[in-house]
């Protein structure tokens, strides 16, 4: 909400400087968002008298003036037809900038005659449209003084951010009241005129008392609606309101001055009396913004016999709006219920200054004064004769009473404020404080509901800077970890991935429909997305990472290794997930390695296993199984499972179709680790099991088996490892061979088996027995010892 310093002074008697007031506003919770003085651009212009005016020797339309701007005669060339000796006008010295065109005035020769500045027109100073001649000021205008001060234009505009709880500060007077309470001056008394109305008030009724409890109205007949006076136009323009006509300007002025919205109807356009009622289904109204609104029924409206003329408390209708030909008006001063206004405004997506005030709760006890002030302005500025006042319904003026506990200011607000001072602050703000600390809340402070609110009133006026910093106690006892196991897991995974050369990305939680489609479509969508490609809550982290990878490749990155840790959004919950995407080159061409190498599925497997190991998962027990899904290459992808059902990760080469959908070339590798599926760490305490190193060194034996092509290597290794659990501690596949010497349709798998002797070394007989068991176990999965 914008106010001007001059406007503020109309309500606040103060010696405080602008800076003090700005600081004060912010201190008491009325944050100053900006301040500017539109008059500042006129600060270099002075009032000057034309001493003489002679024809220009070289140009018919120009004159050579001698001008006194306070420092003696100056020669000025001027083209204005009204320039003449004795005229008092506005003069720009060399060095001043003309507001309208940004021209910097200099001493210059105009058609061979030196000119030392410029006499200005209204338009040149952006004070109006007139450009027929230079400004003519009254004869008593003080020559040599700044024009700004004389014209009353030296009025800084202050932009105050009013929080939604402070409707009372959505008028200049409310802000003045708050400043006065905080000691920045004295609130001047509000003059409420007594309007002598003749005859009965206009015919208004209330049917929808829930939405519009009170509807006060007064008619003024025989008026003239012209242009409002300069001072009013200037103030409205200063706060960003376009002056329209006297009647409209009056309603706006009263609203911004006193926080009291009003509406004025052209009585000639009304068919019978006005009623505040609920809208009927399908009724429509063209509002003052020119748009047509169809009502759902139930909204509070003001209507006559024929039509709806006002969306109650939000915006008036175009049809009965006032115009230059209006002579008889009905002035509405009503109280609309905040919740009803809010609902209607939300439904119609219609905002207005009136709605902003009504939905925050205007002062229900200010209807009579508000109407009298408005009618008085109309009578004074437009003439006419006022009727009596009709008061339909009654506003909710019951005052709230709160039992204040002065001690709460210290125990909740953390500040010691004496009881006398507390009483003083509350009373300055308009609260009535009884001896027993029964506090009556003023009618304009709907937001104050309890003791906590009173504490806030006291400490904000006293100053939050006076709250002393008070250390929190250290929690008793030993400091336990403050992160959950899930959070610790997440941190560990993040740092492990980064250490392995992956860059952490954070991508949007919402993705496009077509990005989600290959990943199951997603379980949640945003009803009102900010863009159509941010509509689906991601069912996987891969779409976001793939898009990021594609952007990086487009920017010329040759190798992309990205990961992200975040949630994927499923029908039954949000699951922590780690996504990985590799695209481009695994290694660049090099003098050692030759050609550039791409990524393959084993890169993904290595990454997944390393990260699972870092997470403490039982990596040796995991099974590689199919089922990574359609987004992956069907023959080069897999899942890692703990038991047949618990999928810990999916990985592999992306399906070329998926890659293409994300504008990536084939050969993209991806993986997803489902952190929520990782088994929780068991065990408690820090003690490890006792450890004794084996007395004897382990021995290794190599075996080569022939198996059919389709036998999985891991299947054979598992069989071998399980052949003699006492002796075999490891089995590692180190060679895969097919071709010469191997029967077609078969492959040779070479396995190094590590045997750990116990107390005594293995005898040859024992080694033979173990060897036989290994061969037998391999045979069970179709392996025969290679000759």
């Amino acid at each position: 909400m914008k106010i001007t310093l001059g406007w503020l002074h109309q309500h606040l008697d103060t010696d405080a400087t602008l800076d003090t007031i700005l600081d004060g506003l912010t201190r008491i919770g009325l944050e100053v968002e900006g301040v500017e003085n539109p008059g500042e651009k006129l600060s270099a212009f002075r009032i000057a008298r034309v001493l003489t005016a002679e024809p220009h020797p070289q140009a018919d339309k120009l004159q050579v003036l001698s001008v006194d701007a306070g420092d003696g005669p100056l020669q000025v060339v001027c083209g204005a037809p009204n320039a003449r000796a004795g005229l008092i006008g506005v003069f720009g010295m060399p060095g001043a900038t003309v507001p309208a065109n940004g021209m910097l005035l200099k001493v210059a020769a105009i058609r061979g005659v030196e000119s030392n500045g410029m006499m200005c027109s209204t338009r040149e100073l952006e004070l109006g449209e007139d450009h027929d001649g230079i400004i003519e000021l009254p004869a008593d205008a003080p020559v040599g003084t700044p024009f700004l001060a004389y014209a009353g234009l030296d009025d800084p505009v202050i932009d105050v951010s009013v929080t939604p709880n402070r409707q009372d500060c959505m008028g200049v007077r409310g802000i003045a009241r708050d400043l006065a309470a905080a000691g920045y001056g004295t609130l001047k008394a509000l003059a409420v005129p007594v309007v002598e109305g003749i005859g009965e008030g206009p015919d208004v009724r209330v049917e929808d008392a829930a939405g519009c409890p009170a509807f006060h109205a007064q008619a003024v007949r025989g008026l003239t609606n012209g242009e409002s006076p300069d001072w009013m136009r200037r103030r409205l323009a200063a706060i960003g309101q376009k002056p329209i006509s006297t009647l409209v300007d009056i309603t706006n002025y009263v609203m911004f001055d006193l926080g009291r919205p009003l509406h004025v109807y052209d009585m000639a356009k009304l068919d019978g009396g006005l009623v505040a009622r609920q809208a009927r289904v399908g009724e429509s109204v063209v509002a003052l913004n020119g748009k047509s609104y169809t009502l759902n029924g139930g909204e509070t409206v003001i209507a006559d016999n024929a039509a709806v003329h006002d969306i109650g408390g939000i915006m008036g209708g175009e049809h009965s709006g006032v115009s230059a030909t209006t002579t008889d008006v009905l002035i509405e001063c009503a109280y609309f219920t905040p919740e009803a206004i809010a609902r209607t405004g939300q439904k119609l997506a219609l905002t207005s200054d009136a709605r902003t005030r009504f939905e925050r709760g205007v002062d229900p006890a200010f209807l009579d004064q508000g109407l009298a002030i408005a009618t008085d302005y109309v009578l004074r500025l437009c003439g006419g004769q006022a009727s009596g006042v009709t008061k339909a319904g009654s506003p909710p003026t019951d005052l709230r009473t709160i039992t204040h506990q002065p001690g709460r200011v210290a125990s909740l607000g953390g500040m010691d404020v004496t009881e006398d001072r507390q009483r003083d602050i509350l009373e300055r703000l308009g609260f009535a404080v009884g001896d027993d600390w029964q506090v009556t809340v003023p009618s304009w402070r709907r937001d104050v509901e309890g003791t906590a609110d009173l504490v806030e009133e006291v400490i904000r006026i006293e100053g939050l800077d006076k709250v002393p910093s008070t250390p929190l106690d250290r929690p008793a006892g030993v400091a336990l970890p403050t992160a959950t196991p899930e959070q610790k897991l997440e941190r560990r995974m993040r740092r492990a991935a980064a250490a392995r050369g992956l860059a952490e990305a954070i991508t949007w939680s919402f993705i496009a429909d077509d990005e989600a489609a290959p990943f199951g479509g997603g379980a949640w969508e945003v009803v009102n997305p900010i863009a159509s490609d941010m509509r689906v809550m991601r069912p996987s982290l891969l779409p976001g990472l793939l898009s990021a990878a594609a952007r990086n490749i487009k920017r010329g990155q040759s190798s992309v290794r990205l990961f992200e840790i975040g949630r994927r959004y499923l029908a039954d919950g949000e699951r922590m997930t780690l996504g990985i995407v590799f695209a481009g080159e695994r290694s660049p061409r090099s003098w050692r390695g030759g050609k550039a190498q791409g990524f393959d599925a084993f890169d993904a497997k290595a990454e997944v296993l390393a990260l699972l190991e870092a997470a403490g998962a039982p990596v040796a027990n995991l099974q590689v199984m199919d089922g990574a899904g359609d987004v992956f290459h069907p023959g080069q992808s897999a899942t890692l499972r703990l038991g047949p059902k618990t999928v810990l990760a999916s990985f592999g080469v992306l399906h070329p179709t998926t890659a293409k959908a994300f504008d990536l070339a084939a050969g993209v590798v991806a993986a997803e680790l489902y952190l929520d599926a990782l088994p929780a760490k068991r065990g408690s305490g820090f003690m490890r099991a006792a450890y004794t190193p084996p007395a004897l060194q382990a021995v290794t034996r190599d075996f080569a088996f022939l198996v059919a092509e389709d036998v999985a290597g891991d299947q054979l290794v598992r069989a071998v490892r399980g052949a003699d659990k006492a002796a075999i501690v490891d089995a590692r596949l180190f060679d895969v061979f097919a071709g010469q010497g191997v029967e077609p349709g078969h492959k040779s798998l070479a396995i190094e088996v590590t045997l750990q002797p116990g107390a005594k070394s293995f005898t040859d007989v024992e080694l033979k027995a173990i060897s036989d068991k290994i061969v037998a176990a391999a045979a069970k999965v179709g392996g025969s010892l290679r000759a």
Partner: protein
Amino acid sequence: MTPDLDQLRADLLAAIDASAGVDALEAVRVHALGKQGAITGLLKTLGALSPEERQTVAPGIHALREAVTTAIGARKADLEAKALAAKLASERVDLTLPVDRAAPGGVHPVSQVMDELAEIFADLGFAVATGPEIEDDWHNFTALNIPETHPARAMHDTFYAQPRRPQGEQRASAAGGAEAPSDDGGSATGAPQSARAGQSPSPSDGAGAPPAGPEQDRTAQRFVLRTHTSPVQIRTMMTQQPPIRIIAPGRVYRSDSDATHTPMFHQIEGLVIDRGIHMGHLKWTLETFLKAYFERDDIVLRLRPSYFPFTEPSAEVDIGYTLEKGRRVVGGDPAKGNGGWMEVLGSGMVHPKVIAACGLDPDEWQGFAFGTGVDRLAMLKYGMDDLRPFFDGDLRWLKHYGFAALDVPTLSGGVGA
């Protein structure tokens, strides 16, 4: 000692010295010490001598053999060393040639800052809590004293969410074909742990949407993308007995987009509920946290009265900055030089209605809450001036603003990297 021996010694030693390679040296050795060798021959003559003669002659021959053997050994070692040196010299490589560099991995600045904040608040006894991002209306608004018709709702630019299909038809697995990962490993949103000894956190329904639990009958099950981390306050107070000290970091969403606003961003919420907590504790906590975070003692805060529906009294907090080379650097008192105030967080004493909505007695328990933007804190500390690249995954940006894996924020090492 006879002149013959002296001559032989001189000849042999000269031959050893002159031998240019291992083979030549071997020839000398055979000539001297081989079966037919000169010295071997001399030794053979000893058998024919009388003991007296032998005593006279033998020492000279033995000494000769010893000297020649030693000289051959020394010459051999010398030759071998030279040969090795020559071989190694021939093996020289150009070590200015490049090696393969490890891929440059890194941690996103938002993650780094979250870790920094968790570290700072752990020292103050705050546990880390989480909650769902697809939140129900009740937790996000109503319980926080923001009813349907409250003007403050308009300040939030809320995203609304809805299930895409009836439940049960969803493919739970991201990968499409895989079975759903089991959820017995814990959810993303478990109950916050207590920082205090002897208190066991109570179970939370937090993980999923739609939420189960007592609030189900209080909401029409309208879902939003949480507009702030404040619903975690509600979830914590409803599941945990005070005293409570938590921070809740995470993603939040508002329909807004420009250089300093993105539709998704990160907040961190703080909540303390105890007996006798007041604004002074809030002020101290914020000062302590911001000084620790920026690692500067000259952090100046300005608390401004403000309004949040869920706190009363409420305060917005500005931090003082000074201008250094045209950039805003946090720290210093704006009143004393060129600089100004920047709003960094919102805070206040938890509204009695909020405490009551969570089933706690507002006459017994009170406390404070605060919330701030993690991305914004990162920008202020590390100097990014645009929020949008945070969520682009641009490797160049990530390399420039990211952190090394081992830059783990610790209190002993400093929370800044």
